[in-house]
């Protein structure tokens, strides 16, 4: 982006979002600890905080992992995506509190270094008496730290969106580690089946959600047939005004937009966080990403000043009411759109 970085780009919506989020977090912990003290007066405040922060962080992780596939299934969930990084950082903070309290309670009073103690816990001499679940939690927390620490747009720009996205896909590894941490911790800590059932149910929910969203996305990505360096995408009348149709061209989606007078095509991958430009719309003459509002000129693929992002453009052609898109992007983003006025086709 061509502007000066701030710590957080506060606006009214973000302040409201964070206000609701942290009110919910504090309320959850207050109810958990208060209820725990009433239900089980022998429990210490520290123990209840450890359990409260663990359940809350794990619950928030499920919410975070659900947002992505939910937005693929229905655009109504998109507002949840806008400030997902705030949710992620907040979840990490809660998990960090849990980690620190746990280390203090279970490892800080011994003779050896508390961090080392996590790996060489004498109370669990071998796997037959208990799985060493605590290292799983530590490694999961480290991944969450890496994600929280690189959540700012500075890192997005330094690492580039694909690399940044790959780093943040480690959230699934973190989930697997934390699932193991919770499951093996529960088994050793309590005889009740309810926590075990809820944990497994949460995992099943995420797996099913991702499978449904994944199959639906896969159906949209049928490669278009090629002829003379162009691929047929759709009929002109299949594209709504100021909206797009997407097609798989060159291993990635291309977004073909329709304005009043012409058909234009740009890469369907937003440079910000690789959002689906084909699901956006043309606003004030610019293709607008539905995820975070990044904009690109449909003719040149460039963002309006002072922003410097750009995406490749593709030549388009219309023949007998059918829209064709070139297989190869324009080498310098100088694009000749296909006219809708009945004039000779440009290609």
């Amino acid at each position: 982006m061509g502007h000066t970085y701030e710590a957080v780009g506060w606006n009214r919506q973000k302040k409201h979002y964070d206000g609701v989020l942290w009110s919910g977090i504090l309320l959850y912990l207050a109810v958990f600890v208060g209820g725990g003290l009433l239900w089980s007066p022998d429990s210490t405040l520290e123990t209840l905080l450890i359990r409260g922060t663990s359940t809350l962080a794990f619950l928030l992780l499920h919410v975070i992992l659900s947002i992505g596939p939910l937005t693929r299934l229905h655009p109504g969930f998109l507002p949840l995506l806008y400030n997902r990084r705030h949710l992620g950082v907040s979840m990490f903070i809660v998990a960090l509190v849990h980690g620190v309290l746990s280390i203090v309670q279970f490892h800080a009073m011994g003779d050896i270094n508390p961090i080392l103690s996590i790996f060489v816990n004498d109370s669990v001499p071998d796997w037959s008496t208990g799985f060493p679940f605590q290292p799983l939690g530590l490694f999961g927390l480290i991944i969450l730290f890496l994600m929280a620490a690189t959540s700012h747009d500075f890192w997005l720009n330094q690492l580039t969106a694909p690399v940044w996205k790959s780093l943040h896909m480690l959230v699934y590894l973190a989930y697997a580690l934390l699932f193991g941490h919770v499951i093996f911790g529960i088994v050793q800590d309590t005889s009740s089946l309810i926590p075990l059932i809820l944990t497994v149910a949460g995992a099943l929910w995420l797996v099913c959600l991702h499978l449904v969203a994944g199959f639906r996305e896969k159906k949209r990505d049928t490669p278009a047939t090629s002829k003379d360096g162009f691929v047929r995408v759709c009929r002109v009348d299949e594209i709504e005004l100021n909206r797009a149709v997407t097609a798989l061209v060159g291993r990635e989606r291309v977004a073909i937009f329709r304005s009043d007078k012409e058909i234009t095509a740009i890469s369907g991958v937003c440079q910000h966080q690789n959002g689906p430009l084909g699901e956006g719309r043309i606003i004030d003459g610019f293709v607008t990403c539905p995820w975070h509002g990044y904009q690109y000129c449909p003719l040149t693929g460039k963002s309006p000043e002072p922003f410097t992002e750009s995406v490749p453009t593709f030549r388009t052609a219309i023949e007998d009411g059918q829209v064709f898109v070139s297989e190869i992007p324009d080498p310098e983003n100088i694009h000749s759109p296909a006219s809708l006025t009945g004039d000779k086709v440009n290609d």
Partner: protein
Amino acid sequence: MSDALIVWLLYLALAYLSIGVLFAIPFVLWRIDHIDASAVKSTRGFRLIVFPGAVALWPVLLNRLSTSTSDLPRERTAHKEIQQ
């Protein structure tokens, strides 16, 4: 995994993070705008927020500093690779 190996790995991690802290402090104070023009005149809150990441990813930033450019790295997507 033996206790001795775990100890050595923890020392390695500690060394990595120590180098990260020594790098990150001058980086966020004086050098961050050398690799990103948007960091010029950036707020103290921003520099504080990127500090933990700079400790963790100091090799990446050191590599960026060594290229002596404030131009942002170009992302590699399927379409941009074909375009080049």
